[in-house]
């Protein structure tokens, strides 16, 4: 890609520039020097000895466990012991005053059959006898004592069937020493010689705690849980569990990432997250879907959620497509008021917490996954064939002549003569060709996709590594369309000592997206009687003036490439002074995320664009468009976190953090015309006429202070308090900082002792409430400044005012409260789920404020906090496990979300959105309303036409053509006719009204999974009900131009005729000749929006169905001993779509306008279905 060389790095925007990186670091170091000094001092001082704490005891005939509780109270140290074992203790008699804890413990254990040890700040009490097995439901093994000082704990985690569990979390309690199992279920951890307590967790399985006295290898069997209540949920700046969470957080069922072969994360999770509305777009390869959490709360900023990968927030330009779904271990979605407010100014659209796979295990393991998909056309657009085309053309001509005769206007007599000419030309003189070309069929190709993923993990003495490689190759359904993605993930983790830990992450993806150079619109409109190629095999080129464009010309003459590269680098240092301050961790992380995108298109001189539409007056000899965009994000994050349990019931954790982020963006678009030759001499440097380039460049920074504290009492009562303070350069200095507080509380009745006894079938019934504030900071970087732009005059440079200063620009702040219930009922979580209600009020949403014309600036608008929006909704999700035993596990899940959106305030009562005159904003109504003329069916007869004409004294009802089979507009204001604006003025509002809404009444998804021995069947579906959509393609149907008619959809056969008066569509009509006022039929249909082409876009879609088989381990060991695990699977994506929507895809949306976007569908990309075959191997 030599093209990169053309764009020179600019100061401040060279993302590979070490200089920039150093400068940022230096800047930070200077500013943060105080911080560093204090934190260092703090860490050193915290190394004071735990055992030096002073205690006082006066015990007579006491019980050892009670004495330990007293010591815990006095010292706030953690003690680890088993109460059952302590029953064997002897009575205690002690009288000590103000002695050290060490001395007190020594005295306490003199005659006891126990001893104590200090392990990572925890005082662990152990029996002196060897190989004593403990009978405790949470402590499964006590292992032989060994005399080594340090050792590696190796182990394997399997399920009840002996299958390795991949990605299970293994942690030494009280430390940050944590790892994950690899593809074989193996793990390795470094620890002290004695008395480590290891916790093993895995999604969907009971958490186990193993008390390890001394061992080198353990085998752990995890039993599937009755529910996922103790599953780790990743929150911002910390973790929690479903049982102890205080706010609404949805976790995606992690297994679907293994089951769904789609290359898009959003496609995989569509319908699986309550409250998440998705629109997948046209379905073209690599297209970015629209994701809206809990309703639209902004009109200008980034509507999508914040994506956080492994604790590092991505910037606005980061797309879900940049992630390889195969790398994902889990996704947790923070949507509640308190949960999302921890990300303050970036949390308004919800937060996706993505955790990627890692695991540092020895010996190295290799996993490989392969997927092959075959894509088939699913309900392609059907066009008229040549005979149908000719028939309908003739019909349209006759209808026009017949209508004019009936109207009997003298002015039209001449036109009838004109139509006679058309008749003679087209019908009598053999005007039409004899071909029957399926133009769309010419553009389709067999579509396939293939996906390879390779994972290698390993660990040495002090170093662990994970390498993930991914490759996706999709060949699109339309010739020339395709998508390639390469992924690399590299993680390194080192523990030089228990005190220090450091690591680094390097990951990136390269995406090569080929958009088809073919305009499907060209193919749709080509006359079917024309040939695709001449007899000599050359491409048939229609006469220029006809407006027909043979799509094969663009196909062969256009070279279109789009390449984007995204990568992130991160390094961290972690200090865990467990010995001096148990529970405290200090972590500092520095990361740099960059993306680079290059788009290049060359239109050869024989194409429409390359020839300037074959203009003879202003011809063009080829055109090249070059686009470059670069974004960068530097982040510095340092945080102190603390987690402790006091008196076994008081659980406290907290975090305090400082965060600095600098975002930058640079884009440039250049157009170069006139090239000497199309095939070789078409580089950007060969063009002779460069046009003025356009582009943008900006940089913005943000500072954040974060504080959060959690407290729970015995997992029954929970409280979370947080505060975040964000400052951004995007705002004027006087409005730069904003505070984002939150508070949340929960009461888990299921943990109440009395309740447990009375209602034993309720495992969890948690009532929770939360309040919090978030904002949207995705506003222009310099939106508040007066800016000047360049100009020139009389061969001299000049500057002119561009943008008005706006020091009143403030954050658009969302205040949200949540009420929710989480429950898990009956034996083994037979029924579990949650119900949520939320109310999110966004005050001062940013909107473009049109400046008075007399302001005299180049920019005709500025951003202002003009709008208030309220979103409120209910979400319900349920999972039921009808059968769950060692052989069969069947689960069914479903969710439903309803969001009510209301515009509470805006600058003007009614505002037409510029991008689409079809939608408006109106106070008191939801966003995304259709707006225009209402229709009332079709005229059935001339008598009916006459009746409508008679409604007013001018005998003029509507500007639309009036005849049987034509659309009737409704007279909204009841004055007897339908008013239009004039040709150049379109402010006439009296007849227009709200026609419908483009957001659904409710939406959600369903899924099911059945596991029987080694077989797994799973299916996921999604649905949306109540949204309407305009399929704009219809606006050009049912009519022909008298000269150079374009082909139409096959559904034109379903037009109105006198014999079919109940037909759903108007009759065929030829447009009038010389219609200078353009008030014939064609003009109003496209320019005066009405409801005839608005359709119900409700749908239910079966997204994915899969059947897989995992051979038993014994079978593998016997026949394929190199494998520890294998899986073979078959699946189908987009199996069925149930909808009445006549367009290609009810999920299509217009990407240009984010508000009106969901309302508009101008897509023609065919729906597809993909059949996948996948193999998954793990090598020993």
């Amino acid at each position, binding site marked *: 890609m030599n093209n990169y060389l053309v764009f020179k790095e600019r100061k401040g925007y060279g993302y590979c520039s070490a200089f920039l990186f150093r400068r940022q670091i230096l800047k930070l170091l200077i500013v943060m020097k105080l911080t560093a000094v204090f934190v260092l001092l703090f860490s050193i001082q915290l190394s004071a000895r735990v055992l030096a704490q002073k205690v006082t005891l006066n015990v007579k005939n006491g019980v050892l466990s009670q004495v330990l509780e007293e010591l815990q109270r006095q010292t706030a140290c953690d003690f680890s012991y088993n109460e059952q074992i302590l029953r064997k203790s002897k009575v205690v008699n002690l009288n000590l005053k103000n002695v050290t804890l060490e001395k007190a413990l020594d005295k306490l254990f003199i005659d006891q059959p126990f001893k104590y040890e200090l392990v990572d700040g925890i005082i662990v009490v152990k029996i002196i006898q060897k190989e004593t097995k403990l009978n405790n439901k949470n402590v499964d093994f006590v292992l032989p004592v060994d005399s080594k000082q340090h050792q590696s704990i190796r182990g394997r985690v399997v399920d009840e069937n002996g299958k390795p569990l991949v990605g299970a979390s293994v942690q030494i309690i009280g430390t940050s020493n944590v790892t994950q199992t690899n593809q074989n279920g193996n793990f390795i951890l470094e620890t002290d010689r004695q008395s480590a307590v290891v916790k093993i967790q895995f999604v969907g399985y009971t958490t186990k705690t193993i008390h390890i006295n001394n061992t080198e290898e353990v085998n752990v069997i995890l039993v599937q849980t009755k529910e996922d209540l103790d599953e780790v949920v990743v929150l911002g700046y910390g973790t929690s569990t479903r049982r102890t969470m205080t706010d609404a957080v949805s976790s995606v069922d992690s297994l679907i990432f293994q089951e769904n072969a789609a290359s898009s994360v959003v496609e995989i999770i569509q319908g699986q997250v309550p409250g998440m509305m998705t629109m997948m777009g046209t379905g073209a390869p690599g297209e970015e879907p629209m994701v809206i959490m809990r309703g639209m709360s902004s009109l200008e900023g980034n509507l999508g959620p914040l994506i956080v990968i492994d604790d590092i927030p991505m910037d606005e330009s980061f797309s879900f497509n940049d992630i390889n779904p195969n790398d994902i271990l889990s996704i947790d979605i923070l949507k509640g008021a308190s949960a999302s407010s921890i990300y303050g100014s970036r949390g308004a659209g919800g937060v996706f917490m993505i955790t990627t796979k890692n695991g540092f295990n020895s010996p190295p393991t290799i996993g490989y996954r392969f997927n092959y998909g075959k894509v088939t056309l699913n309900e392609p657009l059907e066009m008229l064939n040549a005979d149908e085309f000719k028939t309908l053309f003739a019909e349209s001509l006759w209808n026009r002549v017949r209508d004019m005769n009936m109207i009997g206007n003298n002015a039209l007599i001449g036109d009838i003569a004109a139509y006679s000419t058309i008749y003679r030309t087209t019908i009598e003189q053999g005007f039409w060709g004899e071909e029957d070309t399926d133009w769309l069929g010419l553009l389709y190709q067999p579509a396939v996709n293939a996906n390879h993923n390779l994972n290698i993990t390993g660990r040495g003495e002090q170093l662990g590594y994970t390498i993930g490689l991914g490759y996706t190759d999709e060949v699109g359904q339309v010739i020339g369309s395709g998508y390639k993605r390469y992924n690399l993930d590299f993680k390194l983790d080192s523990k030089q000592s228990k005190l220090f830990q450091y690591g680094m992450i390097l990951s990136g993806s390269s995406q090569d997206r080929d958009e088809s150079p073919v305009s499907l619109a060209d193919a749709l409109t080509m006359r079917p009687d024309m040939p695709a190629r001449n007899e000599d095999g050359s491409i048939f080129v229609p006469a220029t003036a006809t407006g027909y464009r043979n799509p094969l010309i663009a196909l062969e003459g256009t070279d279109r490439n789009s390449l984007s590269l995204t990568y992130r680098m991160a390094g961290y240092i972690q200090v865990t002074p467990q010995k001096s301050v148990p529970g405290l961790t200090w972590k500092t992380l520095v990361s740099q995320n960059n993306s680079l995108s290059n788009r290049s298109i060359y239109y050869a001189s024989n194409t429409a664009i390359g020839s300037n539409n074959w203009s003879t007056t202003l011809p063009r000899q080829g055109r090249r468009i070059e686009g470059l965009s670069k974004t960068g994000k530097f982040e510095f994050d340092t945080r102190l976190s603390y987690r402790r349990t006091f008196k076994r019931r008081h659980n406290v954790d907290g975090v305090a953090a400082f965060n600095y982020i600098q975002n930058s963006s640079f884009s440039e678009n250049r157009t170069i015309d006139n090239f000497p030759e199309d095939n070789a001499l078409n580089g950007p440097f060969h063009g002779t006429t460069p046009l003025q380039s356009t582009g943008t460049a900006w940089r913005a920074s943000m500072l954040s202070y974060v504080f959060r504290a959690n407290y729970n009492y015995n997992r029954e009562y929970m409280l979370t308090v947080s505060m975040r303070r964000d400052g951004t350069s995007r705002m004027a200095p006087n409005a730069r900082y904003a505070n984002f507080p939150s508070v949340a509380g929960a009461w888990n009745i299921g943990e109440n002792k009395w309740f447990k006894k009375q209602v034993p079938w309720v495992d969890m019934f948690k009532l929770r409430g939360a309040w919090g504030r978030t904002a949207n900071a995705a506003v222009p970087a310099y939106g508040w400044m007066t800016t000047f732009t360049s100009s020139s005059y009389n061969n001299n440079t000049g500057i002119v005012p561009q943008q008005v200063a706006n020091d009143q620009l403030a954050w658009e702040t969302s205040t949200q409260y949540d009420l929710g219930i989480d429950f898990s009922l009956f034996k083994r979580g037979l029924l579990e789920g949650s119900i949520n209600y939320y109310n999110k009020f966004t005050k001062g949403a940013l909107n473009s404020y049109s400046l*008075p*014309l007399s302001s005299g600036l180049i920019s005709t608008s500025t951003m202002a906090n003009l709008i208030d929006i309220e979103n409120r909704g209910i979400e319900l999700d349920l999972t039921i496990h009808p059968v769950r035993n060692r052989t069969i596990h069947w689960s069914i899940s479903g969710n439903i979300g309803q969001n009510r959106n209301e515009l509470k305030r805006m600058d003007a009562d009614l505002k037409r959105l510029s991008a689409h005159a079809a939608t408006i904003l109106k106070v008191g109504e939801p966003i995304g309303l259709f707006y225009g003329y209402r229709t009332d069916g079709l005229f059935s007869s001339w008598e009916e036409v006459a009746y409508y004409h008679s409604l007013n004294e001018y005998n003029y009802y509507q500007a639309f053509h009036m005849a049987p089979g034509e659309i009737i507009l409704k007279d909204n204001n009841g004055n007897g006719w339908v008013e239009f604006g004039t040709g150049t003025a379109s402010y006439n509002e009296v007849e227009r009204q709200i026609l419908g809404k483009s957001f659904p009444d409710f939406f959600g998804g369903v899924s099911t999974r059945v596991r029987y021995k080694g077989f797994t069947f799973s299916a996921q579906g999604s649905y949306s009900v109540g949204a309407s959509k305009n399929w704009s393609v219809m606006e050009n149907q049912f009519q022909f131009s008298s000269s150079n008619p374009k082909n139409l959809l096959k559904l034109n056969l379903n037009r109105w005729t006198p014999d079919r008066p109940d037909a759903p569509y108007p009759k065929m009509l030829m447009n009038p000749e010389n219609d200078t006022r353009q008030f014939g039929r064609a003009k109003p249909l496209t320019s005066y929006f009405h409801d005839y082409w608005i359709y119900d876009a409700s749908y239910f879609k079966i997204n994915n169905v899969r059947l897989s088989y995992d051979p038993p381990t014994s079978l593998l060991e016997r026949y394929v001993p190199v494998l520890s695990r294998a899986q073979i699977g078959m699946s189908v994506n987009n199996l069925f779509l149930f909808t009445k929507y006549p367009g290609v895809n009810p999920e299509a949306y217009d990407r240009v306008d984010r508000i009106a976007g969901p309302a508009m569908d101008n897509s023609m990309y065919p729906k597809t279905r993909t059949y996948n075959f996948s193999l998954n191997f793990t090598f020993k």
Partner: protein
Amino acid sequence: MKQQVYTYLLLALVALASASCKKLLEEIPEYELVGENAIVDQSTALNALNGTYAFLKYEPLASGTYTYAFSFEFAVNAAQMAGLLGGGRRSTFDESLRYHSVVPSDNNLPAFYRQAYRIVNAANNVIHYTQLIPASKINDPVRKQILAEAHFLRGFGHLWLLKYYGYHWDVSSEYGIVVRKEPTNLGNLITGRSNVADSYQAIIQDFEHCIENTAGPSASVFQVSNSTAKAYLAEVLTMRQAPEDLSRIITLADEIIAAGDYKLETTFAEVFNPSNDYKQGRELMFSRALNQEALADILTSTGFFSYRVFHNAVGSGGVVYYPSDNTGDHYITLLEQDERYVHTWDSVTVTIGNPPEMKHNLSFVKVWRANANCPSYLMRLAQVYLMKAEAMLNTNAPVKDVLAILNIFRERSGNVLYVESQFAGVDGRHTLREALVNEYVLELGVENASEFLAMVRNKDQGGSRMIGRFNIHFSTDASLALPIPHDEVVLNKGAVIQNPLVLE
């Protein structure tokens, strides 16, 4: 111990919170100028002044925002209203101008209106920031000159707005213009209209400031000179026609002529002779800059915006404009009898496209001359003479003295000279006024709206405005001012009242 831990914990948090990070949030655009660093010294002030002049041209700005062809559109619109033109390709806008039926919602109005205010705002920024430049960074004479020119340009922008949108013929009217004297900011965004008297006063003050602070000729006809400023002041006073204005107009005209910075061409044809384009010391006093090279670029460019200017002026295929037809035959009759006709309307051959293609069109060459530098005649000395003649007529000067001026132009264009006897009798002075307006039309028509304004302010012996002779669609004074664009009325939230509308 616990206390100690908590103390250190607290200290660490305080350190985190108190780290002064103010500088981290100061992001100055790397590729944009902001208020604080845009006009800070002599060089940047000159740049900003040149940027203000730049709004006179027609080219897309860097942002892609289309700027209307100031000199083209501002001349043509008035000529349409005056009834001199037929045709036009600006949708129905040309037609509604001719028919005096422009509606506030017409899509052509906003850009046209906004362009004049861009000149005003740019000039206000120059004035505001240039005054703040420390003495060490700018020479005082240069500062004085920059401020003088900026004042002129602000007055110039306001003047055009008054010509088109204000009741300039009625100094007692409330329908003046939105006068802006400070750079636009959020505080003054919503500003109402001044009355006509105050609007005139604001413009006059700006021109007077310029006159007082400049001396002698300017470097080029693209830059205001002392005489040019006086000429514009004379125009404003001619429009206002207050009793005290008349003698001042004559004085100003005499001063301009006496200064000798500009001289009348010997023949009418010489005014438009390409070899005289932009030469200093000749008749053209003020023009926007456009040279042959830039013009060639526009003609051959495939860029849409440039193409549109050409398209409006000449048309890519057929005739775009033609001498008035359906607005009365007064103009045609007058024109066809005058020797200046051939220099006003001409068949123009242009070469456009790549490969080049010849196109033949009828064009009014005063506005668009594709075969040369295509000057715009925003002000030329002939207008100063005619304004002096008008002032003399209004001060009851002898007929022969007025005729002496008119005959200068008739003589050099080869027309029959007026003789005093033609204007004898009771109606003589009315006839003379008619002749004067005809001279505006024939000499200055379709150049800079001066013919339209002359038709409006001068009345015949029946007390009717002379525009009625040229445009039969004129019926009420209300149609002499264009409606304030709909968006301006809406976006100014009631502060800007609409002109009384003809079509309601």
